[in-house]
């Protein structure tokens, strides 16, 4: 089993500009240290219609209401920063914000994984002897001897599709055939309940116990820690 940089195509070149945008890094940095409710706030705002921050503050009383930490508290300040950053993403227009959201989930996954393990890389293909090379790279990989991992990242549960599941499972089986081990999984910035119903419909013959699912409530597991 070998890892290799993906060959850049037109889509990758355009997408690389999105991935390199400072807004993506800022959002990922904030979300890496966020609570689950703060992450739900980010998902809602980035996918929402309203551009008025007051609307979102009202919608999340545990972050901004009378029972929330007071302004100046680090948790409250993070909620405010996540709200402001998410509104910036939402303001980019439908097509662009969709690309930003995907890039943010990938960058967040990378940040959480490096807390637990290394080396962590992006956009890598996995090669196996005697097997045709997959065209599509994996979003984030851990390239550690004996404890390799491959993760595909999705903004929402609708991104869980049969071809994605099969590609991950193929890679896992390829590693087993070489007497190796590759942990494969999906990181989805969406509710676990929604991901599970999607996964069951899309999995086909793939055994779900061989595929890790990390949903929005469990993102801290990537970092080897309990949810904040």
């Amino acid at each position, binding site marked *: 089993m070998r890892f290799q940089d993906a060959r850049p195509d037109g889509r990758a070149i355009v997408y690389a500009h999105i991935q390199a945008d400072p807004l993506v890094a800022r959002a990922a940095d904030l979300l890496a240290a966020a609570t689950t409710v703060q992450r739900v706030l980010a998902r809602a705002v980035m*996918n929402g219609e309203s551009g008025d921050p007051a609307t979102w503050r009202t919608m999340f009383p545990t972050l901004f209401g009378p*029972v929330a930490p007071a302004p100046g508290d680090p948790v409250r300040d993070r909620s405010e920063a996540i709200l402001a950053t998410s509104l910036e993403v939402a303001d980019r227009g439908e097509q662009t914000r969709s690309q930003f959201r995907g890039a943010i989930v990938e960058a967040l996954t990378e940040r959480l994984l490096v807390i637990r393990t290394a080396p962590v890389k992006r956009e890598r293909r996995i090669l196996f002897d005697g097997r045709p090379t997959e065209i599509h790279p994996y979003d984030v990989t851990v390239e550690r001897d004996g404890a390799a991992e491959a993760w595909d990242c999705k903004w929402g549960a609708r991104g869980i599709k049969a071809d994605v599941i099969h590609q991950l499972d193929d890679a896992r089986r390829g590693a087993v055939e070489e007497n190796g081990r590759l942990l494969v999984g999906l990181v989805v910035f969406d*509710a676990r309940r929604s991901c599970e119903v999607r996964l069951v419909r899309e999995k086909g013959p793939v055994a779900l116990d061989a595929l890790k699912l990390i949903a929005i409530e469990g993102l801290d597991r990537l970092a080897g820690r309990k949810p904040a």
Partner: protein
Amino acid sequence: MSTIADLLSRALEGFETLAATAEPVADEYQYVTDLGTVWKARIAAVSAARGTEAAPAGADAAIEALVAEAGLVTDPHRAIDWLSTLPQIALASIGEAA
């Protein structure tokens, strides 16, 4: 004063609005149906356990804003994404995990 059951009932109205908006996406009919099944069951379970409690501070306005936001969604694909998000926000507003 509203109870938790009152708020969750209003949240479900928002959910139904989104489901109706999502209807034109025929390919996702099954997924939308599945979302309805699991999220309504979760909300019913919370309502059964805590329905008679008074709504916590800010939750009444939160649900009102949430349902209003759901009503603004006109794109059926975005409505499907919101079918997953609306229950999470509703439950968070009353201090419940999804």
